[in-house]
């Protein structure tokens, strides 16, 4: 395979997070709802870890993963109160799934119909060519027109292969998650300890719970060890296990 073919294939088969998620739900013959989404959360996180992805792809997937974890947290803790923007991120995701479902079905129909029965164009009537220059166009005016076009051409980075295939390994993904969770945990615990009267404690609580779930996930996979020094309200220490 040549370099360009590889890129082409990578490009065309790239599935976005919405498509991947919808496939997971449909594979289980579920309807899209909180319960089915909570059920596929683990699969989805696993998918991110197992697929070689570029950094920006990982970013798009993690945004969806964050909402899934929120849905899962809500299904585990029914009394959990969510901030308005969190509720919105959930309904948003559900709506995107519904829209994508419709579009992907239409796409199949359109691809079947495309180019099968063309309404052909007529040809223009032949007319004698009359040299008719535009006095505004001289040998010097074409250059700026041309160079202004160059900026419109999408340019793949100079080393496309290196960029496209720079995958994030499982460890890297988890290292990022771990890093974020550790930081999140510290800040959120500080918030609780300090009991800032003006702070949005509801959001913080949810964030703490979600981080906590994420941390448990990492512990379950043996990626990190969690240790609470002494007493219920002391800080939880996270240490990364070495392979």
């Amino acid at each position, binding site marked *: 395979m040549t370099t360009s073919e590889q890129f082409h294939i990578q490009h065309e088969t790239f599935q*976005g*997070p919405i498509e991947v998620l919808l496939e997971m739900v449909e594979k289980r013959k579920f309807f899209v709802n909180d319960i089915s989404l909570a059920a596929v959360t683990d699969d989805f996180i696993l998918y991110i870890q197992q697929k070689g992805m570029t950094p920006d792809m990982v970013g798009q997937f993690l945004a969806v993963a964050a909402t899934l974890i929120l849905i899962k947290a809500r299904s585990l803790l029914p009394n959990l109160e969510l901030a308005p923007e969190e509720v*919105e991120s959930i309904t948003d995701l559900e709506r995107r799934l519904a829209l994508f479902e419709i*579009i992907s079905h*239409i796409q199949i129909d359109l691809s079947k119909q495309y180019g099968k029965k*063309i*309404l052909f164009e*007529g040809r*223009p009537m032949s007319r004698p060519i009359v040299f008719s220059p535009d006095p505004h166009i001289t040998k010097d005016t074409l250059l700026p027109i041309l160079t202004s076009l160059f900026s419109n051409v999408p340019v793949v980075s100079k080393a496309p292969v290196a960029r496209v295939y720079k995958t994030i390994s499982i460890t890297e993904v988890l290292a990022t998650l771990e890093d974020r969770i550790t930081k999140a945990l510290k800040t959120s615990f500080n918030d609780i300890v300090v009991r800032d009267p003006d702070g949005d404690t509801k959001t913080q609580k949810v964030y703490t719970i979600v981080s906590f779930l994420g941390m448990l996930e990492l512990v379950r996979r043996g990626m990190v060890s969690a240790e609470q020094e002494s007493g219920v309200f002391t800080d939880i220490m996270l240490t990364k296990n070495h392979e």
Partner: protein
Amino acid sequence: MNKLTCQIHAILFFTAEPQSFDALAKLCGVPVADIAPAVQELVQSLQNSGVVVLVQNNTVGLAIDESMSEFIAAMQKESFAKELSKAQGETLAIVAYMEGATKTDIEFIRGVNSVYSIRALVARGLIEAKGNGRSVSYVPSIDLLREFGITSTAELPEFAAQSAKIKQLLTQKDIQ
């Protein structure tokens, strides 16, 4: 046909290229408002003639009737096997069934960067950019109708039902 309709027919036939209502009004020296009724008359007159009139986005063009497509395809030796990639098909579906969509709309629904698909569809002439800057939206073109063998986007598969569903789901977004 009245004189204006004849003129429009002659222009479309002579140039064999779609013309915007604006351009036709200028060429014929009439107000733009006069164009639509004349185009309607042309649609009527050419019914069942082997040639159809396609109207989309205030642009009108002539094409050969659907019943003749196989015949014409057989007449010319070159084959025109054309395919849409999945990404392009999704993007096209969004533009056609939303009856105009921005890059943001497309990426909201597809969940992935869609610059390449949009560009490929514009380069193939299946969709056209309208407006400029941030408010650019993409709309179906006359060539889209031709390539699908239809005379209006309303003839696309399940158009009315799916288009209504999509629009309804999208308006929920704006309310929030």
